[in-house]
Each structure stands twice: as structure tokens, then as C-alpha cells.
């Protein structure tokens, strides 16, 4: 039963990746620009000064003189075998670019997600656990505020206060763990807020369930009930959401890396989109899709551990 569930999920993941690649290819192919012209412009060469022969040889070199479907399958094959091609605007292999930029974004993403989980779960648990009326209300309203704050504004505010005024953390760059603090907080706030919102609601629902009444009747303590009984059941919706939020880390990194001047994947994505650097954009899109797929696959695989009914219930299609 579990094997069937897993293979279904994995197959789905592969399909999603393929679709992401194909859609990106089509969209980028439909853009009205001529890659060779962009290539020359990036090397600050005026296209009018290049002879038709040179143009033709450049097109040939990049395989742009072949029919679309040939280009598609050649590139797909290259992609699958790990060859992402060469950046048009930066003249270096895409893998090298990604290799340079990825560690910074991974560190940022990981710390932001960790912080978001701590903040989100913490707020939700406290909101539910709190007995003082006003505190309960305040804590349960907090997520709405967090969701409404524009991240770039929060980022600039953090810089003003903690970098320029108090001088506790650096405002820019990527030097050591202290430079992760401010951007992580900025990225964690909206994620934590959403997580807290969903978790608070499902925790409250769970605490109304008959099994909680039973547990209470057995004389279990409030914390045991909340953590052992209610939380496990309430965690499922939050886990689904967490999967989606994790997948969106790369998108959030675009803003965080711009505000905090970090040279990561998000910043690379922004630059490459503006410059229509097709190979780089394609690699990043597929990477983002892969992250999304992998995270959600992992979460799908965790579900049955939390709630065995998922596997034993209806079949996965």
C-alpha cells in the first residue's frame, strides 16, 4: 500500500518537473527577442557591426539555426544530463553560476524557514494555550498583521533599526551567520504568519473534538492534551501549507536578496529575467520547480506517518 502511494507521488513529481521545463521553454521561445542580438548586446557589441556570416556562425554555435522541436529535445536531453548550457549575459556556464549563487540562497532559505516554523508554531501554540483573554486575542490577531506587512518595507525597517541605528547586524552582504539574521527575519515573517493562522484555527478545532474531551476526562494535563493529542491532528493542514511556503522560498529570496544586497539565486533570477538570459532563467525555473516538487513529495511521504488513514483510505490517483 505504502509502496504504491510512494511510486504514484514520485511519478507525479517527475511529470510536474517536465511540465515546468516545457512551459518555460515555450514562454521563452515566444518572447519577441532574438537571443543572438541579446548575446551581442550583452558583450556590448553592436549587432549592426557584425557580418551576416558571423551572425550565422553564432546562431549555429548556439544551435539556434535548428528547428524548434530539435532545439527542444536537444536542450531537454542536455538538461536531464545536467548540462544547463551557457549564460547569454554573463558568458559562463549556467552550472557554474548556480554553483556560485546557490549556497548563499540555501543558507538564507534554510534559516528563514527554520525561523518561520519556530515563530509560526510558537505563536499558534501560545494563542491557543493562553488563558488571559486579551493575550489570546492579541496573539491570534498577530498573524493577520504579519501577513499584511510588505516584506521589502519590513526589510528596510530592519536595516534602519538593527543595522544603522543599533549596529547589531550588517545591512548588506553575505559574510558569516550574522548577515543572515535580518534577511531571515524579513523572509520568515509572512511565512510564519500564514503558518500561525492556519495552525491556530486547526488547533482550536482539534481541541473541540470528542477525543480531547475524553483525554480531559482521563485527567491529562493541558500541555499533554495540546501537544500529544491535538497538535498531531492539527498539524496536517499546516504541513501542507508549509510545503507550499517552502517552495516559494526562492520567490521571496528575490526581494530579500535585492534589499540586503546578497548575490544569490533570487537576485540572479531577477537580473536574468530582465536581460532575457534564457538558459539561466530556464535553469532557475526548473530548479524552483524541483524544490517545490521535492519538498511536497517529502511532505506527502510524511503524511501517512502522522495519519495512517491517508494510505489506508482512498487510493491515490
Amino acid at each position, binding site marked *: 500500500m505504502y509502496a504504491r502511494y510512494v511510486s504514484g507521488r514520485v511519478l507525479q513529481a517527475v511529470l510536474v518537473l517536465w511540465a515546468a521545463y516545457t512551459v518555460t521553454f515555450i514562454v521563452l521561445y515566444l518572447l519577441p527577442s532574438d537571443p543572438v542580438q541579446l548575446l551581442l548586446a550583452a558583450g556590448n*557589441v*553592436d549587432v549592426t557591426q557584425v557580418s551576416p556570416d558571423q551572425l550565422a556562425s553564432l546562431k549555429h554555435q548556439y544551435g539556434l539555426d535548428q528547428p524548434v522541436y530539435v532545439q527542444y529535445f536537444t536542450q531537454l536531453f542536455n538538461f536531464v544530463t545536467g548540462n544547463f548550457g551557457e549564460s547569454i549575459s554573463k*558568458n559562463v556556464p549556467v552550472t557554474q553560476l548556480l554553483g556560485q549563487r546557490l549556497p548563499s540562497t540555501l543558507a538564507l532559505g534554510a534559516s528563514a524557514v527554520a525561523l518561520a516554523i519556530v515563530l509560526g508554531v510558537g505563536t499558534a501554540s501560545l494563542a491557543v494555550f493562553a488563558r488571559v483573554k486579551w493575550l489570546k486575542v492579541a496573539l491570534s490577531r498577530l498573524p493577520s498583521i504579519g501577513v499584511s506587512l510588505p516584506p521589502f518595507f519590513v526589510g528596510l525597517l530592519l536595516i534602519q533599526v538593527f543595522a*544603522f541605528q543599533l549596529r547589531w547586524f550588517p545591512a*548588506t552582504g553575505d559574510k558569516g551567520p550574522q548577515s543572515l539574521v535580518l534577511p531571515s527575519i524579513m523572509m520568515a515573517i509572512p511565512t510564519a504568519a500564514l503558518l500561525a493562522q492556519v495552525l491556530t484555527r486547526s488547533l482550536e478545532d482539534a481541541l473541540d473534538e470528542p477525543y480531547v474531551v475524553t483525554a480531559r476526562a482521563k485527567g491529562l494535563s493541558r500541555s499533554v492534551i495540546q501537544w500529544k493529542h491535538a497538535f498531531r491532528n492539527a498539524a496536517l493542514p499546516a504541513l501542507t501549507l508549509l510545503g507550499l511556503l517552502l517552495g516559494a522560498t526562492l520567490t521571496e529570496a528575490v526581494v530579500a536578496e535585492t534589499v*540586503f544586497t546578497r548575490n544569490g539565486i533570487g537576485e540572479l533570477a531577477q537580473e536574468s529575467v530582465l536581460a532575457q538570459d534564457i538558459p539561466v532563467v530556464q535553469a532557475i525555473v526548473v530548479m524552483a520547480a524541483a524544490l517545490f516538487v521535492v519538498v511536497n513529495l517529502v511532505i506527502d511521504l510524511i503524511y501517512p506517518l502522522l495519519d495512517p488513514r491517508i494510505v489506508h483510505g482512498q487510493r491515490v490517483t
Partner: protein
Amino acid sequence: MSFTPLRLKRRWALAASVVTIAALTVLTGCSGSSSDASSTGDTATPVAGGTLKLAFWDDQQGCIDPNQVYWIESRSIDRQIADSLTDQDPDTGKIVPWLATSWTTNDNATQFTFTLRDGVTFSDGEKFDATAVKTALDATYALGAKSLLGVSYLAGYDSTTVIDPTHVQVNFKTPNAAFLQATSTTTLAILAPKTYQETPEARCAGAIIGSGAFTLDNYTAATSAHLTKRADYAWPSSLVKNQGAAYLDAIDVTYIKEDSVRNGELSSGQIDIAWPRLPISDADQQVLKAAGDTIETRALPGISYVLTSNITGNKPLSDPLVRQALQKAIDRPTYASTVFWADYPVVKSPVESTTPFATDESSLLAFDLDGAKALLDQAGWAVGPDGYRYKNGQKLTLDEPLTTSGAGDQLLQDQLKQAGIDLTLDVVTTAQYTQKTAAGDYDLVGTYYTRADPSVLGSVFDQALTKAPTAVNSQDAATAQAISADFAKGLQTTDDTQRAAAYADLQKTLITAGVTFPLYERLQVSAISPKVHGFAFTSEAFLRANDIWLEQ
């Protein structure tokens, strides 16, 4: 403690990076201008040591090779690494000796003979001599279109002849009177012969060896650069006070795109120099000054920020009357004082006032709204019910592609509206921008280009030299001929009176024929921490770090 206003500013030169008419981007710079916190009055004794932390706004070209790069910030770094044959006095525009101790020029400006300084070495130990000069010039010329600036600096280049180790002769097929000034630029900096064995791409990425006061340890495009001093440096130009090794141990370069963040880093002491592209706003300057920082400014010579017309086909600007009306409808003094600050210089010509041979064409650029309206009436464009002008049911719309639009663009839009002209600010991505300008799909396009010689205009407007849209689309055959003739005249002689006459004529023609519409002068504004002493701009408005020392 200072509190910098939170503000996201437009990033205007974004456009500049990828443009086919990349002429736009190129900020060279030079020649005399004001510096309101000049370090010349600095009497304290310099102390050696320390690392200067410098933050630029961006690095969109991502190239550090002085021979290839046009990106102004990279050239500021290059000035510390690579030396040139000559130097240019920022105050007078005069060319002075550097790696060449003297030179002679023939009358028709086709032959330049340089006597070279002895005892100069590159940082890899190679000796600087006539052969090194030949290798460098030949290789820069061979870059062709890859060196946007080199193409015009070496226009008509024929060969370089090594006479003996300290004498070298540069020959041109056609006159190039601007070449002497070109030898003072970073573009024609002489790198070690070994450098030229690398591919142009490798050189762009940092494989360069110069004879400068600093060496390049590493360069990561748009991220960082690290320079360390050469202890045995002893051959700066006479414009440098410190004739020995630099005081600074090292220079650390970063790129911070957000203005508020960059300024905040400066006022909180995390960087020493904030060097943006767009002038620091008046409000920000006040905040920085309050924190003890100083502001250094220098006008970038070369082409002012201008809009260039597209007169092809049936476009509205194909009618000379409409072009004249547009020229009159722009209120330049208001533009300068509104977009920048109260006493910001008003543009007077297609070239900046600090460029040698610049003339004052204020009378041709005067704001005359009634005159503009009369011309448009005469051209058959009648005012419609919405205030805009129409002819045969067609609205008088001018399309200006941009990658970002800011206060200045909107002010211009409003000014033109007064005359009934509908300026459409068409904000597109850099890639689309390249496409649109190359295809001639615009009415007006912004341009600027820095070099301390009026021949710089040729790179943008002379059809005999460039096929860029700014040249091809902006002039009819007769105008093109007149313009090319003026450029040729300006380059044929080293006689200043004759050059001045040719360039004066050229500046008038560019305005009256409606080839170009000057909008504003460009100032390099840099903010400096109080612990930095000996700050200096080169003639090109780049950094010169030889005299800089840090309070310890």
C-alpha cells in the same frame, strides 16, 4: 545619529547596460568642475595603512578589463590598477605626461610619437617598454566592436611602430586629433603583454595585469573586487601628490543597489565611500552632511543627458517644425531645479559644459512655450478637446522607451503636455529596450556618453562612424553629411582654433536640426566618510586613490 529616509529610488541607468546603442551608457568623464568638499585644504600628515571600503550602485556590464569596459564604475576600479601613457588635468583638461614623458604629433594628426618613461614594471615583473605599448594598442584595436570605446578612440588606427625600447610611434590612416586625449583614458591603458594572451572573456573576468598603484586580487562581477597596493609603485603622473606607493593597504569594493541602504552604510561607518550613478538627492545630502560625511561632485564631461529623435518614416518628428517645437517646449531650468536641486547646473549644449570646446547654446535651448505652440500650429497640429494636438485625426504622440521611469521623465511628460504633445513613457525590460531601439520602434530615446573630448559625439551621431540607431534614425541625408563633415574637420587638425570652430558648428547643427534634445547635465556625486583624506577625482570623474589615506 542619522536617520536616512526610506526610499526606493529609480534605477535609471539600468537601461544603459544592455543597449545596442550602448554608446548611451558610457560614462567617461573629465575636465574641470567644482568640488565642494575638496581635500586640497587637507594639511594633516598622511598615515599609511588601512582598507578603503567603497560601495558602487551596480555592475551591469560585469567586465573589469579597462580596454573593453564602458561601465563607469569598473573604470574607476581600473584607474587604480592600470596606468596610461598620459594623464589629463581635471582643472584645465590639459594632457600631461604619465607613462610617456613627452610626445610629438604631426600637423594632420595621423602620427603620434611617444617617449616612454624608464623603470616602469607591470605587477608581474614584466618591463614596460615600446613593445608593451604596441602589444596593448594592437590588441585593443583587435577587440573591434567588443571595445565600445576603443572603436572610436582608435578610429582610423593603422599601426604602432617600435622605434627603440623607449620610443614608439602610433600611425593612423585617417586623422585622429582626439587620440592624444584618448591615451589618457583607462580604455587605452597599457596592460602587461602577457595579459593579451588571455581571451577577451578571461580579461573581462579579471585576468588583467597592469602597472598601477594597486593590483587586482579578485573580481566577481556585480559582487565584489579586492585590490592591494604595490609596495614598489613609483610612477604616477604629475597630477598625483603622493609620488610613491599608495597609502592604503587595500581597497574593498562592493555593490549596493539600494540608495537608502548604501547611504545608511556610509553614515553608520560600515563603508567609507558611497558612489552612486544618479546624483545623491538634496535631502540625502543634508542627512549625510549632518552625519559628518562630505559630498564631492564633479560634472562628467562628454554628451549631456539628451533625448535623440527618430525622424524616419511618417513619425511626428520627421517634420522639422515639430522638432523645433519640441526643443522650445522643454523647460530646462525648471527640470534641473526640480529633479535635482536649486543651483544644479542647467544644460547648455549637447555636450557638458566641462568638455573642451563646449559652447554655450542656451539661447537655442531657451524655454518658449508660445513659440512651440505657434510652430505646432504652423505644422498643422491643432489642439483637440483633451488639450493634446491632432492632425488628420491622429494624436501628436511621442513614444519614449525606458527601462524605469522616474520623476524627471514625468516632469518632462508634463512640460510637453503644456504644448499639446503626448509623451508616452514606455517602460519595458532591458531586453525589450534593446529590441525596440535596434528596430527603430521609438520617437525619442535617451542617451549619454562620457569622454573629455567633443569627438565623443561622433560615437553616437556620426553616421560615418557608427550604425547605431541614434545616428541612423536621427538625421536626414543633408544633416548627416554636415555632421560627418564637422567631425572630420574636428579630427583633422591639432590646431585648437580650427577644432573649436568645427565643434561649435557641430553643437549648433545638432540642436537646430533637432537631432538631439539636451535635457540635463550629469554630475558625479560621491559621499565620503570624514575619516577619508586625500580624495580625488580623475579628469574622467573616476576615483584616484593614490593620495587617499585613512584616519587610524
